[in-house]
């Protein structure tokens, strides 16, 4: 770093404005401080400048500019990422896509939707619903996350169990490569095997391979009926057993979401919708599809829940009540911040028949290290979010959090699981990557990275460290 970062920052912006006419560039200390973080706890770094391109051509020019000077570029959507993916690296340009947010086309004949990468997920879903179609992926952050960010993290949601994750809805992408070339990969065809499916490489690439500027999404017809239920438990393992049993009974409901007692109470403090505060665990269950099938599936799941120790299973009486339950569930992570000033959230995922063991491990680990923890997650996907409720100013406690985190990861891997199901590796999990996937995998990933980005200017240091 130079002695006076803001002087060099303004020099850089001046050059950039000259190079890309009309580009919105911000470099005041206030603007830079406002892009020093994403949704991840305890990470902070300021960029040299923040740019807001309004079209693909501007994105391309910015990358040409950066490539010629080897300036790192960190792509940002809405900055809700939970692994530090859009946290700047020192001296970088943050390229923010929130002003490229148009929904360009909804094609009801081919069931596709084309949007700019900065479009907000909820707006995409609403545009689809506007013509009677359905875009299922619904991450907890959908009201503000961008579709580009969803692609870059391959985000999941509350409906992952039945409908899959973002990847399952990507038909095509427009991507700007690190040298500024603009590439289309994919199309409106249901089938296409002309060469490698490059599109898939960008899904979950966390802004390290290219900048996604347009997204072509697959839409589906919406289900005709829905039924939402809340199963109440006096112990967490029984909730996990219920999930395993439902899957084993060959039922694939749309949603199987889990909340533990700490989370229930935080969510209730915020939403005040009458969740049972005394319960040790809740399962939010939703079945959707043909009305008759929904009834049958729901009845079967009620029986399974009761057989596995659910005290009570409440059925949402109205669509509004069902929606408010799902909305409340989406606030779980943020609501947990009511307990401790720093919330460190994990994303461990295991095969679904190993859920009871994983739940037990989380409880025991928290107890052993004397840590406060709240757990919620997409249990139907085997994806739990144990969240440490701590204080980053308490170094001793933060150390215990680190130890606990390592143990939980180790156990998840032992059970055939992974360190992150949907939030990505970013900065937060990169030290665990090779343990999770092995050195060979990391080596191949590095080779792919250098094939696309030989100079290493796109989001350097995320997922893995650059090759020495």
């Amino acid at each position: 770093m130079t002695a006076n970062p803001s002087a060099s920052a303004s020099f850089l912006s001046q050059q950039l404005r000259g190079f890309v006419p009309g580009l919105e560039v911000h470099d005041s200390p206030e603007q830079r401080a406002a892009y020093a973080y994403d949704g991840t706890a305890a990470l902070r770094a300021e960029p040299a400048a923040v740019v807001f391109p309004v079209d693909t051509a501007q994105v391309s020019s910015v990358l040409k500019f950066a490539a010629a000077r080897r300036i790192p570029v960190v792509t940002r959507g809405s900055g809700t990422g939970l692994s530090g993916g859009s946290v700047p690296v020192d001296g970088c340009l943050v390229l923010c896509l929130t002003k490229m947010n148009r929904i360009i086309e909804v094609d009801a004949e081919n069931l596709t939707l084309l949007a700019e990468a900065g479009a907000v997920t909820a707006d995409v879903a609403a545009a689809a619903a506007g013509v009677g179609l359905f875009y299922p992926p619904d991450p907890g952050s959908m009201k503000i996350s961008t579709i580009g960010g969803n692609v870059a993290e391959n985000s999941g949601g509350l409906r992952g169990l039945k409908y899959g994750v973002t990847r399952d809805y990507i038909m095509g992408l427009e991507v700007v490569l690190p040298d500024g070339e603009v590439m289309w990969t994919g199309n409106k065809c249901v089938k296409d095997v002309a060469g490698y499916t490059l599109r898939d490489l960008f899904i979950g690439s966390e802004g390290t391979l290219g900048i996604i500027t347009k997204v072509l999404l697959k839409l589906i017809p919406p289900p005709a009926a829905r039924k939402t239920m809340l199963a109440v438990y006096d112990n967490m393992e029984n909730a996990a057993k219920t999930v395993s049993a439902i899957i084993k009974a060959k039922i694939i409901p749309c949603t199987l979401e889990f909340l533990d007692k700490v989370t229930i109470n935080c969510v209730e403090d915020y939403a005040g919708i009458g969740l049972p505060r005394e319960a040790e665990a809740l399962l939010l269950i939703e079945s959707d599809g043909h009305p008759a099938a929904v009834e049958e599936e729901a009845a079967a799941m009620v029986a399974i829940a009761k057989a596995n120790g659910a005290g009570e299973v409440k059925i949402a009486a109205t669509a509004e009540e069902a929606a408010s339950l799902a909305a409340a569930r989406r606030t779980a992570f943020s609501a947990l911040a009511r307990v401790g000033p720093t919330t460190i959230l994990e994303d461990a995922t295991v095969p679904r028949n190993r859920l009871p063991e994983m739940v037990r491990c989380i409880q025991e680990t928290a107890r052993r290290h004397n840590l406060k923890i709240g757990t919620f997650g997409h249990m139907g996907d085997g994806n739990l979010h144990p969240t440490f409720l701590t204080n980053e100013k308490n170094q001793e406690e933060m150390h215990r959090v680190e130890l606990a985190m390592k143990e939980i990861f180790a156990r998840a891997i032992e059970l055939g699981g992974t360190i992150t199901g949907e939030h990505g590796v970013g900065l937060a999990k990169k030290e665990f990557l090779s343990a999770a996937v092995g050195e060979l995998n990391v080596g191949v990933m590095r080779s792919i990275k250098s094939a696309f980005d030989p100079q290493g200017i796109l989001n350097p240091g995320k997922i893995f460290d650059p090759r020495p």
Partner: protein
Amino acid sequence: MSELALKSLDYSVLQQCMHCGMCLPTCPTYDLTKLEKHSPRGRIALMRAIADDHLALGPAFGEEMSYCLGCLACETACPAGVDYAHLFEVARSDVEKSGVMANPVRSVVRTALLKILFTHPRLLRLVGRMLWLYQVTGAQWLFRRLGLTRLLPAKLRELEPMTPTVLPKFSHQLIAPVEQPTGGRRYRVGLLTGCVQDLVFADINRDTADVLLANGCEVVTPPVQPCCGSIHGHNGEHAVAQVMARRMIDLFDPFTFDAIITNAAGCGSHLKHYGRLLADDRDYAVRAREWDRKLKDINEWLVEIGFRVPASEAAEPQKVTYHEACHLCHGQKITKQPREILRAIPGLELTELPESNWCCGSAGVYNITQPATAAVLQERKVARIESTGAPVVATCNPGCHLQLVNGLRQADSKVRVTQPVSLLAQAYRTEPGATNSHEQK
């Protein structure tokens, strides 16, 4: 410069924001600009950067705090329970203390408005009276006709058509100091007449008193009331706000009332926090906490005591829509009660307003300090109101009331603006066999 309050603030208040971004879509200034520093999360990050010495408090931060509407939509949206109102007041107060925004004109105007006019109720009424004379004598018409408004500085010129129409009478000329309900007394309440409400909407204060009387409340309304200090608190004048709070508590001893009633949402959301404002004041802390407990918005109080549904002769129902004042729905979390009152009034049919809790741009003195943004929000609000097809819109705050009147007038709209309590008062008055519900003592 003295130590910044942001630095001495309990740090966990700042840390409470875990930067999840869930508040961003509800923030009107973020919605307009898509810039992080114009969002709640960004603003809190700037405050924290100042507290942590990553950022110096400069004019750009001052401007940011001025650009924030203080609408508190972010508080409603925030699952983590961030107390944005508190952070915002602390930050604004630091901006004032640091003097980074000082320029001679701003200082004179601020002193005139905040430190003189809004601390001297009699003077405020006098100015109000002159404004009224100016309007009714036709001087306003003449002034505009002759193009003399062009002589005003640009900012004032934009404001001039916004100046509210002042009523011929103030509250104390319409409401006796103590009024008794006819049908037996169930409660004893104090009535706050407010500053703007008193100047411009004294009739709504009368309506409020009538509604209280109709529901068994003895109404105590001291003729001269100090400003509650909300305008000072929201604008960084912490010490003046404390002085005003003490005067208010001196005037209304909270231990002698069942409730102290305000009908101005902007005042209410400040009035409910005297406890915090005077926490370190040994003489006042106890009374201030009691005050917080007793302070009720009129809508809240009416529903709490189970207000009487007016009797009616069947009439063609008229549509009414409801705009939520930010400081009622976000600041005080009062959303159901005004709707319940509107639904209970015979002959009215409540039609929901799309984006009913999106700020109308009034936001205290925002339409004076940030006219461009205020105008954009005003137009957006007017368009939504028009889309409902309702001939009447009700709201619960004098600032919003004026903002809607002005916005609708500029759009040549026929929609009338009123307040739920006025509609209720009117319904009681037109009940079959209605008599005067109060006697004056």
